[in-house]
């Protein structure tokens, strides 16, 4: 692109701006607001909505600020009667075919259309409805609800699914006034090959895409006196939930979150970080096992690829089923926690596992799908013979998943004054965790946590510097060579790579698929930036949201005294008391799983 600067005029004032920038970028730099609906930096520049139009001197028509490049001498007017009338008319045209259900719309807090129509002074809809708004709600997915009657066809979801995630499960179907966002054959999104990553929900400017709420079910469990309801919270939740209550982006609110959960009535307030440490023990051991085998000339699948992101797991099952042997057999921390809560914890507390309800609070919509996978329900199998359970007694390891956003709403409904809550800590025995676990929430975190342990196991020496800067940061793909010197002096160089966002994952996967991958260990997170930017996180227009949440995560890591998983006393204890050692028979029974080939084409033929 042209990087020379150019001089332009905006509303009569001269500015010198980068020649490659758009009118929108130039205006934003100059502090001039231009409304947008369809535009999203780096994701969607289709120019479809038309709301951002401005007057450009000598241009035949109004110009779209979001996609029109500036040129030397350009004379722009952003606030003229013509511009205001055009924008207003466009909003009115949208509203003519929009349900206007703001009162019972779960997006009303964040809805950009509602806000724009207020900002532009739209006080009536002069136009009548010209199409039926009778598309049924799409409830086929356990993670996503689609109300396409509310869709304004901005295409942000289509583009994020295509450009960022490379999943391409949705596109526009039909033409003209009959256009709609659609899966193949207009199927439900749950019947299609969506990964449930929820990135589309995050970008939808209106209430057309929302998570499927499980709040009601959780309230029901909480008010059932026969149930012992435990809750686990993922690492990425504590750095984001504050935003739901108006706190600054990147607020670290672990203690308040624990306090709030306790006030909602949970019987045990635990931390997924505990099982994240467990994951490191299991995954690290699995990795070293495979690496040693390969170095010793035996057969084993390398690279090992992490498995804690269910959006990612569904993606590889659909698109690279041949690579499934490379994926670690470890369950995700959420599912490890569920299994442990209904076995180890149940035994320890003397509870009937049937009466334990395990709820998890996740930054993630894909976890809603994950907890329904039947092959993950190991606690039931564990108890089946011992308690003589029948098939109808079946229970899941994790009973319900709430996103960070849902927890925020639930606390509001429960009347919890979150901001003024005191700090409290998690309960024991599944509440203790390490810095290694908390960084799981950022891209590169699992890798860093694993390497902290792997290093010490291999070298039998303490890690000289705990922070591994090479695997941190928001780049989509990161690579590092980590030298490990064994006590006998031989050196292994562990080649590792990290991808976040499925589009980036695809790049690394292509290499694995065609046998050219140079890596030993790969971490993949479905969401760009990792879980801290998960599909269930608060929706926020701060462009640096990922960095801010990540820095809160690293801040918590540093504040913790124990920062390596294998040093976690409760982890040591659970191996002593229960699992014996990582990758033991029992660990395999409860903490590991297998995957399913789901070729998208074969699936669609049925």
């Amino acid at each position, binding site marked *: 692109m042209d990087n020379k600067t150019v001089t332009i005029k905006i509303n009569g004032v001269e500015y010198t701006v980068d020649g490659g920038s758009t009118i929108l970028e130039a205006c934003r730099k100059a502090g001039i607001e231009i409304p947008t609906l369809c535009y999203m930096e780096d994701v969607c*520049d*289709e*120019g*479809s*909505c*038309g*709301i951002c*139009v401005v007057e450009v001197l000598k241009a035949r*028509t*109004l110009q*779209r600020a979001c*996609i029109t*490049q500036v040129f030397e001498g350009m004379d722009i007017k952003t606030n003229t009667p*013509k511009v205001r*009338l*055009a924008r207003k*008319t*466009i909003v009115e*045209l*949208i509203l*003519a*075919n929009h349900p206007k259900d703001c009162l019972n719309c779960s997006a009303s807090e964040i809805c950009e259309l509602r806000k724009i129509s207020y900002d532009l002074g739209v006080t009536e809809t*002069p*136009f*009548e409805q*010209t*199409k039926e708004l009778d598309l049924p709600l799409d409830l086929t997915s356990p993670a996503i609800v689609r109300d396409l009657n509310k869709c*304004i*066809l901005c295409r942000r979801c289509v583009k994020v699914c295509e450009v960022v995630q490379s999943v391409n499960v949705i596109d*526009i179907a*039909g*033409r*003209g*006034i*009959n*256009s709609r966002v659609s899966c193949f054959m207009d199927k439900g999104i749950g019947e299609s090959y969506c990964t449930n990553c929820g990135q589309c929900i995050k970008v939808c400017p209106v209430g057309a895409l929302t998570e499927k709420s499980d709040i009601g079910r959780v309230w029901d469990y909480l008010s059932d006196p026969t149930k012992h309801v435990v809750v686990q919270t993922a690492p990425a939740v504590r750095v984001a939930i504050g935003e739901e209550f108006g706190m600054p982006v990147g607020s670290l609110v672990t203690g308040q979150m624990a306090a709030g959960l306790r006030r909602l009535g949970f019987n045990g307030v635990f931390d997924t970080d505990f099982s994240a440490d467990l994951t490191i023990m299991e995954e690290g051991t699995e990795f070293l096992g495979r690496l040693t085998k390969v170095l010793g000339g035996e057969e084993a699948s390398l690279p090992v690829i992490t498995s804690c992101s269910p959006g990612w797991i569904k993606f590889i099952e659909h698109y690279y089923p041949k690579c499934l042997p490379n994926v670690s057999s470890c369950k995700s921390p959420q599912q490890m926690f569920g299994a442990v809560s209904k076995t180890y914890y149940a035994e320890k507390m003397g509870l009937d596992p049937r009466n334990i309800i395990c709820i998890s609070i996740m930054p993630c919509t894909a976890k809603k799908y994950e907890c329904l996978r039947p092959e993950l329900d190991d606690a039931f199998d564990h108890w089946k013979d011992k308690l003589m359970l029948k098939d109808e007694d079946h229970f899941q390891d994790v009973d319900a998943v709430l996103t960070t956003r849902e927890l925020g709403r639930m606390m509001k409904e429960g009347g919890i004054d979150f901001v003024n809550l005191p700090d409290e800590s998690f309960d024991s025995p599944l509440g203790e965790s390490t810095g290694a676990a908390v960084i799981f929430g950022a891209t590169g975190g699992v890798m860093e946590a694993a390497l902290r342990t792997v290093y010490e196991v291999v070298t039998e020496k303490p890690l000289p510097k705990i922070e591994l800067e090479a695997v941190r940061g928001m780049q989509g793909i990161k690579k590092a060579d980590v030298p490990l010197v064994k006590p006998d002096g031989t050196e292994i160089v562990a080649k590792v790579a990290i991808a976040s966002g499925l589009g980036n994952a695809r790049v690394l996967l292509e290499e694995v698929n065609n046998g050219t991958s140079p890596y030993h260990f790969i971490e993949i997170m479905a969401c760009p930036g990792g879980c801290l930017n998960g599909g269930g996180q608060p929706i926020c227009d701060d462009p640096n949201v990922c960095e801010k949440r990540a820095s809160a995560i690293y801040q918590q890591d540093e504040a913790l005294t124990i920062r390596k998983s294998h040093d976690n006393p409760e982890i040591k204890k659970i191996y002593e008391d229960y699992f014996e050692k990582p990758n033991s028979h029992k660990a395999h029974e409860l903490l590991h799983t297998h995957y399913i080939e789901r070729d998208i084409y074969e699936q669609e033929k049925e």
Partner: protein
Amino acid sequence: MKFYRTHVLVAQDTKSILAGSKRIEETLIEEIKLAGLENEIRVIPTGSLGYSENNQVAIAIYPDNIIYAPVLTSSVKEIVEEHFLKGRIIKALAHPMKHKEISMEERTSENQLNIDVQKRIILKNVGQINPESIHEYIAADGYMALEKALSEMTPESVIEEMKTSELRGRGGAGFPTGLKWQFTRPNPGPTKYVICNADEGEPGTFKDREIMEGDPHKMVEGMILAAYAVGGTDGYIYIRGEYNLSINRLQKAIDACYEYGLLGKNILGTDFSFDLCIHTGAGAYICGEETALINSIEGKRGEPRKKPPYPPSQGLWQKPTLVNNVETFANVPAIINHGGEWYKTLGVEGSYGTKLFSLMGDLNWKGTIEIPFGTTIGKIVDTIGHGVRYDRVLKGIILGGSSGSLIVPGELNTPIDFQSLSRIEAGPGSGSILVMDETRCIVDICLNIAEFFRHESCGKCTPCREGNAQICHLLEMISYGYGLPEDLEKLERIANTMMETSFCPLGQTAPSVLLQALKKFRGEFLAHIDENICPAGVCEINFVEEECSCG
């Protein structure tokens, strides 16, 4: 070559074939043989003769210059005996214009098609040669321009010649063709595309079809010349899926070119190579827009792309791409043969050459014509169209298709050229002239146009997707008698927003006839709204009122 005393041309365009022209051709050959004239009289299938509008088969006899129409199988024997054997013209069979008395002198083909008003350069061969024979095209000086260019001219000088001619694109926008070629040439290869836009979807436009059915080689030659000039390596003819006959004839033309070394590797023994194939559309008017067309060839939804980048720098598969209309390409051979300066002797300042128009609606004669720029609208209607049908009064003309403009009788003296038309907020557009007589209702016409655009909007951008639907709804209400006084302002507001903010020219021009109608025929809209009557008696408004008879 054998010498024939007389040539009989049988129209074999879509419409004539439907009317049975194949059978007429066979019968003619049989009868001529029976009469023993097969060495004197030659039967040639050809493109449209311009007489097929009423489901009739027409034949032309040269050099006698007589058109017989309608010709039935039963009359073939008489033609052979009377005309060919005895040399007597059968007056009763010579084509008379409908609803109009035409003297015998007027019945020669030249007069009937008003060759003095028309000027046939692009259509020179249409109705004269067999479009399926490359020999006949070559005999009519075909591929002479290509030979000249390849042997005597550099690509740059071809472009110079085009620039001298000041030919402007015939696809609608009127962009200078030579300039477009010049922009395309310097962009780096190795692959560069030349695309012929043969989507012809604008309602009321069928002039490109006339070329493709009647003289496909002319367009192909133009494309090869363009490829030579801009450095094109691969060509596509993007043609609408409904044009089966055109597709067949073009395919035959392409096959023949490959056979004769006019396409493929080392054309005419030079270093220049160019491949060409046909790509059929699948029913989407928007695919006539060049970037939507490119998306369509790429196997995508035919939605327009943002510009820049323009196709000459990044088009098909991101490669430099030249897109021109069928008629634009068909102009090229003559320009190369006779020179750009010669071309400028035709037409008027700023609008040189001839232009094809599709003539239709309430006229005595309908079909495709070729006129030099500068001819007035009135002259076309009166002389070539032989006036309004049934001696009715002219109400208005829609010029340039549904996205064109509305001309009223007071503007008939306007010459057809870019400058004069722009003075009345019009343009030649796709080249269609739709004549409406006094019995037509303007609300009904606008509604019909709006329905077209609602159906054809790609749906990508809000103003066009929602605006067209909204306009349709409002016009429907008005035509049913439910219109409100404020509806006209609403229509204007939507129309203006569409013109100002639509993503591509489809949405920008969709409301242009409506906006002009609201100005020029406002009273008629108001009659529907205020008085609940449709002055022309077309809208169903009248029935609505009758329903209220219960008291």
